[in-house]
């Protein structure tokens, strides 16, 4: 009956559904904290009221902000993120407790992580309040591209750059260290989206066909080659496999989304294969990662971390040891890169599947936002953010579960790491902003329908 799809399909606000899911997410986060206390010490932790109250406060602040500044935004993103963050916090707290048991002087991370989460929520609120229309970001296309490159170069500078565990991706600001690459990925998405919106026609239509594949013109290859070089540069100078893979993959997918031409994927895939093979031959640490992946139980390469992670997950089995019952300190860095292995140990395959599914939901909502977005820039930004998220989760969880060679990346929202947490909260705020714009009903501009359409009664 209603022919006009715009009036026929109107999204609801769904803020009530969001609140309901947020309550469940709080149950997930605070429940994990309580279960950890019960498992480790036999009683609920004494500070659960304060801790739970703080989480509730953060979640309510985020929810109220969404209610007022983005009433039509997607109802699922925020609760899923809150649940993942809460579970990650409880897990880090659990590993802290285990470390303290062995050594009372050990570093603890849970408190820092809670502070970072608070900052993350503040950034989330700030993005939603200050950025009322994501299209304004399009004006900062080249600014954000430049800022991203500068941020990526910062760790290479002599004084503030810092090398931790072989990768030079940190900078020191006073007592804190920060990974600028995490912020750079958001800026790069904005840059790619702004660039591709303007140039996608040239990239998509000009070019010739070779062997049934549309190849782009030589001059259009400039940016993709540049991006390839940047990724390789990160790989060579910062020895950071994960970020290099992330940035290149992001660029390729956004190019494909913008131009709808699979030729780019083929070309980029070839370039990636060439670069990866070259890196494997030339760079010893890449070779070591691949070697440890192919033969983790061999003695040739150092694969202690992967093997410990695998033992932990195997011990966890289908339903896990129970929170507080495992032994996650045996896995090096179980509080950051390997947190999924620790979850596999204590919550089992059932828990890891839930976590992966939650990540899948975030990606799905991001892509759905891209689909319903009304402007090309918003579409590209949403798709890019979803892809960056998906790639990061794939790379790190794939590495931990030995699906692909291990590369260092943080597990979004769960790993210990302030820069990653803040950047990911900003990503979610951007996605909510775009989805609010996309799902908001169109203003009624139809005006009076034209009179021509009136059917004429035939009079004999």
């Amino acid at each position, binding site marked *: 009956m*209603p022919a006009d799809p715009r009036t026929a399909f109107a999204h609801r606000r769904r803020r009530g559904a969001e609140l309901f899911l947020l309550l469940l997410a709080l149950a997930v986060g605070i429940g994990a904290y309580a279960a950890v206390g019960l498992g480790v010490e036999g009683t609920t932790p004494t500070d659960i009221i304060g801790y739970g109250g703080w989480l509730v406060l953060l979640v309510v602040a985020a929810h109220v902000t969404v209610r007022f500044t983005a009433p039509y935004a997607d109802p699922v993103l925020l609760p899923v993120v809150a649940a993942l963050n809460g579970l990650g916090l409880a897990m880090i707290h659990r590993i802290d407790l285990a470390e303290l048991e062995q050594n009372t002087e050990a570093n603890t991370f849970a408190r820092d992580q809670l502070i970072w989460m608070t900052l993350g929520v503040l950034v989330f609120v700030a993005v939603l309040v200050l950025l009322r229309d994501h299209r304004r970001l399009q004006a900062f296309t080249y600014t954000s591209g430049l800022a991203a490159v500068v941020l990526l170069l910062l760790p290479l500078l002599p004084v503030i750059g810092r090398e931790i565990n072989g990768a030079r991706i940190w900078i020191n600001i006073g007592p804190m260290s920060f990974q600028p690459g995490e912020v750079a990925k958001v800026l790069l998405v904005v840059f790619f989206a702004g660039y591709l919106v303007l140039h996608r026609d040239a990239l998509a239509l000009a070019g010739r066909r070779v062997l049934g594949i549309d190849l782009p013109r030589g001059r259009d290859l400039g940016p993709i080659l540049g991006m390839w070089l940047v990724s390789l540069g990160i790989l060579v100078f910062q020895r950071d496999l994960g970020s290099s893979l992330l940035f290149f993959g992001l660029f390729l997918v956004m190019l494909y989304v913008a131009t709808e031409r699979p030729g780019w994927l083929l070309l980029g895939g070839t370039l990636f294969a060439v670069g990866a093979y070259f890196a494997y031959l030339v760079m010893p640490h890449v070779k070591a990662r691949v070697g440890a992946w192919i033969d983790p139980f061999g003695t040739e390469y150092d694969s202690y971390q992967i093997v410990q992670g695998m033992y932990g997950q195997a011990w966890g089995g289908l339903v896990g040891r129970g929170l507080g019952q495992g032994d996650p300190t045996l896995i090096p860095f179980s509080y950051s890169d390997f947190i999924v292995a620790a979850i596999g140990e204590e919550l089992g395959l059932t828990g890891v599947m839930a976590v992966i599914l939650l990540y899948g939901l975030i990606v799905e909502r991001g892509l759905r936002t891209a689909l319903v977005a009304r402007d090309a820039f918003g579409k590209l930004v949403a798709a890019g953010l979803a892809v960056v998220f998906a790639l990061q989760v794939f790379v790190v969880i794939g590495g931990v579960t030995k699906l692909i060679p291990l590369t260092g990346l943080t597990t979004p929202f769960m790993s210990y790491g302030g820069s990653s947490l803040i950047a990911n909260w900003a990503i979610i705020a951007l996605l909510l902003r775009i989805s609010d714009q996309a799902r908001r009903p169109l203003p009624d501009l139809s005006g009076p329908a034209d009179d021509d359409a009136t059917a004429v*009664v035939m009079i004999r």
Partner: protein
Amino acid sequence: MSELTLMLIRFAYLAILWIFVLSAISVIRSDMFGARIEQTPRAERREQRRAQKTQRNRPKPAKRPRGAPTHVAILEGANAGETISLDDAPLLIGRGSDAAIRLDDDYVSTRHARIAASGDQWFIEDLGSTNGTYLGSQRLTQPASLQLGSQVRIGKTTLELRK
């Protein structure tokens, strides 16, 4: 803490986790199918309730003499069954979005006709419509006075004044 309690806690926590995952999925599902088509019965009811409320809150307009018409009823056509109050007169009838009586009828013009009061009398006036406005069997060429119960035909729609 006994083994059994720990096991119960473990399974209870996994259950909470999965309940959360499944509710998130069900919200997504309802978001997909629950996107409302304009004027679902629920929305309609809500609108009616709102209309009633505004009617109740509005101060009664100057008392009309007893026996005067109070509303227009649509008898036939796509919108059959609707009634529109005469309080907001003059009323524009048409297919356009600015019409007070909006008819979903292909044979109705955007701005088709007008119902207006002059003193105690109600008049209907054709606004140069394509297919004309009929009072009984007469096509209107000039404003005609409307009596209670006299049927007006506009396109495939018939309406009349009621008390």
